[in-house]
């Protein structure tokens, strides 16, 4: 009796699974899950936004002042403590402090923060500022003030050469 029921349940699951898995990302979506970006044209102090997996990715070529300011922040001042060093390390463990690569989505409710385009408000910490509910990020993209719970997310990236970075 129990065996019949168990086998029946397995049968239902076997029928249901293709229908449910069908809704997961398709092959063409997954193929775009890695992109290569040439960062050589980005001057010091400049930033670009690229689209990766449907989301904006901020790539900022940081100035020495940006880096110094980021490294000087004590962990106690950070709602989501993280060293600047940890945020500029690629998947091969190489640290390039001049390249800050982050997913440009506010960790609060998903707006795209300002500060990546010239002329945009960089907010009180000279990094990025989300106009939706006032979250302010510093020059390392860490949350300093406002409702966002986490720092701007760092995706997996790898510098395949000094000018080419693979994101994802």
């Amino acid at each position, binding site marked *: 009796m129990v065996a019949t029921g168990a086998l029946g349940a397995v049968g239902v699951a076997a029928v249901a699974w293709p229908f*449910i898995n069908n*809704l*997961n*990302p*398709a092959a063409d*979506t997954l193929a775009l*899950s890695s992109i290569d970006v040439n960062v050589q044209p980005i001057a010091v102090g400049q930033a670009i*936004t690229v*689209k990766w*997996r*449907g*989301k*904006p990715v901020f790539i900022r070529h940081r100035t020495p002042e940006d880096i110094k300011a980021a490294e000087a922040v004590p962990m106690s001042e950070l709602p989501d403590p993280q060293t600047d060093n940890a945020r500029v390390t690629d998947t091969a463990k190489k640290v390039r402090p001049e390249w800050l690569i982050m997913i*440009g989505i506010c960790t609060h*409710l*998903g*707006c*795209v923060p300002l500060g990546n385009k010239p002329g945009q408000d960089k907010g009180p910490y000279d990094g990025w500022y989300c*106009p*939706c*509910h*006032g979250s302010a990020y510093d020059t390392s993209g860490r949350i300093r003030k406002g*409702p966002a*719970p986490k720092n701007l997310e760092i995706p997996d990236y790898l510098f395949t050469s000094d000018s080419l970075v693979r994101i994802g």
Partner: protein
Amino acid sequence: MASSHGTPPVFNNKVIAWIDHRLPVFSYLEKEYHTFPTPRNFNYFWNFGAIATVMLVLMIATGVVLATNYTPHVLMAFDSVERIDRDVPQGWLIRDLHMNGASFFFIAVYIHIFRGMYYGSYKAPRELLWILGVIIFLLMMATAFMGYVLPWGQMSFWGATVITNLFSAIPVVGESITTWLWGGFAIDNPTLNRFYALHYLLPFIIVAVVALHVIALHVHGSNNPLGIDPKGPQDTVPFHPYYTMKDGFGVVVFLIIYAGFTFFAPDYMGHPDNYIPANPLVTPEHIVPEWYFLPFYAILRAIPDKLGGVLAMFGAIAVLFVLPWLDTSRVRSATFRPIYKWFMLVLVVDVVVLGFCGANPPAGFWIPLSQLATVYYFFHFLILLPILGKIERPLPLPPSIADAVLKKKAA
């Protein structure tokens, strides 16, 4: 003629009799919509079920016609809607009817829900009728949410982003569920396509649940403003012609107001940002849903914690499911509940306040106001209703409906 449904009616028309003997649609209509004994003291609040049904049919009709010209692809959706507006004959009209029809469908349903809450229509033996209604409401919200994404404007895209992102608040499986929902790593073509498929499907599920809703209603018949059961034929009138005509009149008045907006202010209830094509790299200054979602949006944002906000928002609808058991009063209608009557009106004010909170950015005094209004909302359902039913002294109920109606006439 062995039938288990009592004496079959006699039809003079031979064709009708032939059909009815094989598929008793005509005797069904005769019983349920002609002779059906309905309380004689309905007020105009009782029109809104019929009005909601008319709106459902209208939405399906306009929707199917729009579907003949709409393209559910991120590169073509926005333009296909513009083409409907500009090039397709009377496309602008069908589109505006569908767009404003959604708003008016919710207006009718919100008034219908208010009637249920004020007059105790959710109380025994109509608990399941009420629950079916809440299910219809949920299905409507899902349908409307997905429908709003289809034009692929800025508000379509970003509103959908905010709401689908909520699922990532679920611990452990949240991210995977969100990816599965999206069919990708963000809202993109797979999402648009599946929202279109589901938006087309859900209204027909709504029709099925509405059918169950009406069947459940006809088991014990309608409630009435006095909240007391009909005791005999002196308390009721046949549904036709009294309520076919009254409903018909109410529907026409409702449609006039609906037509007023559709023809003279079609974009009044919408957001201008939705006429900007969706851009995943640019967030609009303020992301707001359509007006009918604003109170729930306010509750969502009132709780500073992401998961907490999600639970509160779904909780606000979950309390509706258990309302028949939260309210301990033995008296149905607020007419005879002098204290509850005022709290019911305060709840309406509270929901309107929540609506305004949802429309404004969560800054300044809007934050504590939305938190206060959210707390009050849950206080009403979870604390006030259980207690009030036990301590309130209701007014004496009239002996019967006919009695109350005739006394009113004599007065």
